[in-house]
């Protein structure tokens, strides 16, 4: 049995959904169908598309949008934000420690090989003092819900979390289509995000910056699956959207080629992975990065957001240690729970996982996007057998978790309302001025009946997410 966020366990809608339920009751289904189509038209025209890897490069697809909002009460949200803030603070302290004194390893709370043997660990970052002490300027914490008061952190996104443009466009679309809903419900605004992001990035300017900081967004280019978002954020912040070949190093600074010559950049919000950032320091084949940018970074000539090497904090093997990490650095008990996790590198855990494959979710340690994972309960015997071989061959590469009973929220289908599983990615900005969490975030919804995979690359959609004022 799943917890439905609208209906709860009973027949009457839960508090936050009261008004919405009445509104749906009164609405004409045919009318809503028209609205659903209108929403798609609107998205296509705005160009909110993403490219699917492994398909025709030119193909752009829309992430399906469902018109029924997902609603969180102000009270529920306050609890969540306290937990998120605690976790994000711990992640930044952890990253600083890992790239400096490694106290957590010395204290015996984290095995050394979790770091030394980890591909996401970037030795070049050791001893680097990042501007403002901030590693993860933008974090997305993926949450799932299993009951009225039970939330779990499914994943921390500490590298370059994406999806915030959908959060903003979903709200824009809803405001446009259903203004009456917003006059009935007091929904906390999300539209300040771009302004907040710009301020937050500006507050992390490096020591060599002079005057008002120049911020730019670095994109791999128009064929990247998230290009729309890169352009969207640059546009909303009013900063330049640059590609690697627009940049070069001049006098110890990273400068962009403008129509009036080269101009230095202070803060670079990069949407290019660590590996491709600098062909001189990392992957020499990269065409996307800037040769020498890492040297400029180390000498305090530029802020790179998020800092290189933050992947060590959202690695799925490290994830299993997050409760210890939070406690070690904050001295507090974690407010948000982790999903119980078996590390397959451990022989006892591996044995347990192999015995219970049909009931578990098994994920690659470094995987993302819902690729390369096994969802036991919905997989065929053959799929499980194939996966078993992969797991036995490289146990270190996997972790396993129980299959969670993800909560459901109704979506609008041709046959009326139908419950579907959801997760939530709130977005969190970190600067020396503090931590700011936008109320709501991106709700991803598995559109297929019974499916637990919400990733857009695997048939997931999105919803507007409301946090109500109490």
């Amino acid at each position: 049995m799943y917890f439905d966020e609208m209906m709860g366990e009973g027949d009457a809608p839960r508090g936050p959904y009261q008004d919405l339920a009445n509104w749906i009751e009164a609405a004409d289904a045919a009318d809503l169908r028209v609205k659903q189509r209108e929403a798609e038209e609107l998205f296509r025209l705005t160009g909110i598309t993403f490219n699917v890897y492994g398909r025709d490069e030119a193909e752009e697809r829309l992430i399906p949008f469902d018109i029924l909002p997902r609603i969180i009460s102000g009270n529920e949200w306050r609890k969540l934000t306290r937990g998120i803030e605690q976790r994000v603070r711990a992640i930044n302290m952890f990253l600083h420690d890992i790239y400096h004194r490694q106290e957590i390893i010395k204290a015996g709370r984290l095995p050394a090989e979790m770091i030394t043997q980890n591909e996401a660990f970037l030795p070049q970052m050791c001893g680097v003092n990042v501007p403002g002490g901030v590693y993860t300027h933008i974090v997305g914490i993926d949450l799932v819900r299993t009951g009225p008061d039970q939330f779990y952190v499914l994943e921390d996104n500490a590298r370059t979390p994406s999806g915030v443009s959908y959060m903003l466009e979903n709200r824009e679309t809803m405001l446009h289509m259903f203004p009456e809903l917003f006059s009935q419900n007091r929904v906390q605004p999300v539209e300040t995000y771009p302004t907040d992001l710009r301020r937050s990035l500006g507050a992390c300017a490096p020591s060599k910056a002079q005057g008002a900081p120049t911020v730019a967004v670095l994109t791999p280019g128009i064929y990247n699956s998230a290009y729309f978002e890169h352009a969207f954020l640059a546009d909303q912040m009013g900063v330049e959207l640059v590609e690697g070949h627009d940049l070069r190093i001049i006098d110890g600074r990273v400068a962009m080629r403008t129509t009036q010559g080269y101009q230095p950049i202070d803060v670079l919000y990069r949407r290019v992975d660590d590996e491709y950032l600098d062909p001189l320091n990392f992957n020499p084949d990269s065409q996307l990065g800037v040769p020498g940018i890492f040297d400029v970074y180390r000498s305090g000539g530029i802020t790179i957001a998020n800092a290189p090497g933050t992947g060590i904090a959202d690695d799925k093997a490290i994830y299993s240690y997050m409760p210890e990490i939070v406690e070690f650095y904050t001295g507090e008990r974690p407010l948000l729970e982790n999903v119980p996790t078996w590390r397959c590198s451990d022989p006892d855990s591996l044995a347990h996982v192999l015995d219970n494959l049909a009931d578990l979710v098994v994920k690659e340690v470094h995987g993302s996007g819902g690729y390369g994972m096994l969802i036991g309960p919905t997989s065929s015997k053959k799929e499980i057998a194939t996966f078993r071989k992969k797991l036995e061959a490289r146990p270190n590469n996997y972790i396993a978790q129980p299959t969670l009973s993800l909560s459901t929220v109704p979506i609008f289908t041709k046959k009326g309302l139908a419950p579907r599983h959801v997760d939530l990615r709130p977005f969190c900005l970190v600067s020396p001025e503090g931590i700011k969490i936008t109320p709501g975030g991106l709700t991803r919804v598995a559109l297929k009946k019974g499916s637990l995979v919400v990733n857009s690359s695997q048939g997931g959609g999105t919803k507007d997410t409301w946090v109500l004022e109490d």
Partner: protein
Amino acid sequence: MLGRTANGLFWMYRSLERAENTSRLIETGQRLALTRMGSSDDEWRSVLQSAGVCEGYDAAHDAVTKEDAIDWMLRAPANASSVKTSFEAARANARTVRTALTEDAWEAVNGAYMEITGLLKRKVTERDLPKVLGVIRRRAALVRGMTHGTMLRDDIYDFARLGTFLERADNTARILDVKYYVLLPSAYSVGSSIDNVQWETILQSLSARGGYRAAYGNSVSPRDVAHFLMLDRRMPRSLAFCVSKLRDNLEYLADDYGSRRPSHDLAEELHRSCAVQDIDVIFNDGLHEYLRGFIGKLGGLGRQIEMDYRFIE
């Protein structure tokens, strides 16, 4: 502004202008084919020439037929100037310069791309042709209108305008050059009805028939047609008009950036060559030579702008 952004804007608006001009050429060819007796395939060859796509067409076809010519200009992927590839290029450039465009301008070009690539998925039938050509013109006009109505008059706008007028000047010069012989004074003495049709065609392919009548009355003379399309500053597709716009927009850039570049001198030189008021001077020096020289200088100006404003590394 990034040099790459300036480049993207320049080519986005060049592509849009090109798509519109191509559609206008097709419309002219079609009208001519419908109003003339006998075979008109020769006429389609000169339409292809005016569009500057003859070479590519010949490489892909054995003979010039109306159907193939129209299809080549409307939707051939191998034709870098077809309406379809032009809109694709405009939209791809618009995506790279998305942050420089207003939402209205972006949605106009994205909407244009969606409707037009949709219409050009399949071969366009003769019956649908007028409708399709109409959509192309309206969609291009919508982008221009949104640009005009919503964009700041800053360097972004200047580069957009430079692309527009460079393409337009090039287009007008090419149309004139393909037909230059019917404009020579010697052709005037012939004065046959065929030649009248040719002049009408030139006017029509530049949307200039009404304008010509308003300015010169009902009698069509090659000398007046040439003067109108080359030197008349009221005519928005004339060489003189386009060149003065190029010069203006470069001047705005100089004001804005506080410095002049070599492209300003080239624009000045082009401007002087259009400043002659007497079309006979041009005829005496050779119309064809003048037009070839003009097209060459235009190309040089484009390359200089590209260097001066760091479009590429």
